[in-house]
């Protein structure tokens, strides 16, 4: 380089807020509203049915154990997701891969448990208004879990490509927002459908 010649530094890119997080927050809000609508319908119709003195679910039809097992699975997956977030913040790749992989595996396990239980439940979807609502809510939640698992797979792929380091935490945080929402929705399902029936 000739003496006295200086290369002007290139202009810094415009400071953008965290686009992926903002988009995820909007999308997750929409997904939560979808379930909010289904829950509102569930409680409203249930209230009307019980007010008329009619039966909601047949006695003993919804067992406590499968719901509890599912809730435990989602609770464990919440912890592993926190682990993934912590590992990402500390740029600990190995733990990050492990935690994300485990969370995805627990998500798949939850879907598997749900399918197994509903094959065994003995309540056809057209048994009553209650069972129709039950199948729609649980089915929609399985779809939400499936989307979260796919998203985690994508994040894992990008992590292997070196994009989920401490400087790129948005990937892990965004999938965790969606995952925590899925767990929150399941908590409502567990409390008010599996437990309170």
């Amino acid at each position: 380089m000739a003496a006295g010649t200086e290369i002007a530094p290139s202009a810094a890119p415009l400071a953008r807020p965290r686009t992926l997080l903002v988009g995820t927050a909007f999308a997750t809000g929409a997904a939560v509203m979808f379930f909010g609508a289904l829950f509102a319908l569930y409680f409203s119709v249930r209230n009307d049915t019980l007010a008329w003195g009619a039966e909601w679910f047949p006695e003993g039809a919804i067992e406590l154990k499968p719901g509890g097992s599912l809730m435990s699975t989602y609770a464990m997956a919440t912890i592993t997701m926190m682990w993934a977030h912590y590992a990402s913040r500390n740029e600990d790749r190995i733990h990050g891969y492990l935690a994300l992989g485990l969370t995805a595996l627990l998500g798949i396990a939850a879907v598997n448990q749900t399918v197994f239980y509903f094959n065994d439940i003995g309540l056809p979807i057209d048994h009553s208004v209650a069972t129709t609502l039950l199948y729609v809510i649980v089915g929609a939640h399985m779809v939400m879990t499936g989307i979260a698992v796919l998203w985690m797979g994508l994040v894992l792929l990008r992590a292997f490509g070196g994009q989920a380091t401490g400087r790129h935490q948005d990937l892990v945080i965004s999938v965790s927002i969606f995952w925590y929402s899925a767990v929150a929705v399941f908590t409502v399902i567990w409390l008010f459908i599996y437990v309170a029936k």
Partner: protein
Amino acid sequence: MTDTSLETGDATALERVVTSTDANTLGRYWLGAGSLALLASLVAGVLVALERLDLSGAEVFGSADEVFQFWSAHRVSLVLLAVVPILVGLGTAVAPRQVGTDTVAFPRMAAFSFWTWLLGAGTTITGFLIDGGLGAPDAGGQRQAVALTMVGLLMAILGLLGATVSLLTTIVAGRVPGLTLRRIPLFSWTLLVSGTFWLLTLPVLAANTVLAYVDLRGRPAVRFGAEDAIWEQLSWAFTHPQVYAFALPLVGIAFDVVPVSVRSRLANHDVVLALTGALGVLGFGAYAQTFFDTPGTPIMREAIYVVDAFAAAVVALALVGGLADTLRRGAANLGGRPPAPMVLSVLSMLLLLGAGVAGALRAVDPLDLLGTSATGAQMTLTIGAALVGAMAGTLWWGDRIFGKSSSQGLGLLAGLAAVVGVLLVGVGVVLVLVGALGWFANGIKRLTGAPAPADPWGGHTLEWADDPSSVEVTSERPLLDARQTEGASA
């Protein structure tokens, strides 16, 4: 412009069309497809209006079920396949520029959303045409076709949701430095408010639709999918107050167009921000479902609904007052011929006020207007206002979006025909169709028009700047600030 489509060198025209992720191009797609759906919707409306005239010898439909199917097709397509997509199109093309960027956030998702919506719109219309629709009072539709209509509706909702997420993220996260949320142009602000409420309510409509679809498929329906019950659980999305949330961007269009037209600043920018936010809140209609009726008291007779109706009218009146104040202060600058977009945007605001008043009167119990044609009139006025506002918006920003000029006179005539048609309600849909055809023809004419100047109006906001990143933003009207600073220093 950022475009992640296939390299133009090897790609065919079809490949370029399908893979484009450019915000301006996607905006044009939404506008084009939405206006075609608008024409289809209005044709359905005209057929229903002819049937209602009870002309002897003009047996348009074979049964009451068919009348209902076309009537519901008209309503659903007017909102979800026409007016909202047209507003999304305007937003996709204009809002990124208004916040100082040249692309939408998640461009591939934005493109995917458009194509999903388009496929959904086509499926919905097909479902209606093959004796489907959203059920019928006498359960006269074909079950498979009804299911197909609902699949189409779900796809259309999914597409609108994806486009909205992309648009809102652009507005929130894509702003240039200095452009705080309080300073973003009012069209972008109203898109942000209304888009937020679309994200809160369209999933509710989707949930209702999924429930009906699951109940309908493959077995006798238990309740939700019974063909005489489907419309009942979906109709809240196409009436008061939800229609306000769909129509809200028209307010932003008016408040962006009028101050520039009269070369004046808006006196109470923050008040308008608050009022449009309030109208968005009042437009949240997901609670007004028949499922949430208290036994013996329909939701429409409950206090929340009545208060909502009156508050919306008051907010609409305040917004019209703000617009009138701006017009009064800038009247001296207006000249002999006010610009066509300004005339149409003012008229759209007056229609919105009319809708607010109709909604408030409808909620007065002693008048007993619930269940009468007042319900349809209120919806027609609101969605009609949004349509006229969108017409004003395309005339205003069209030169920037398409790079070609159109006929302002034809645009004005088309808009006026639509306004008169909306005011006549019922059979007025014929005039609305004439107006929409004129608007569509003007759009086609624009494609072959003369090159348009970059800033034909002397705009105040960033979408009119050649390089938004070079503009210092210190208020909600950065280009006007720059001109005034230049004028002062000269």
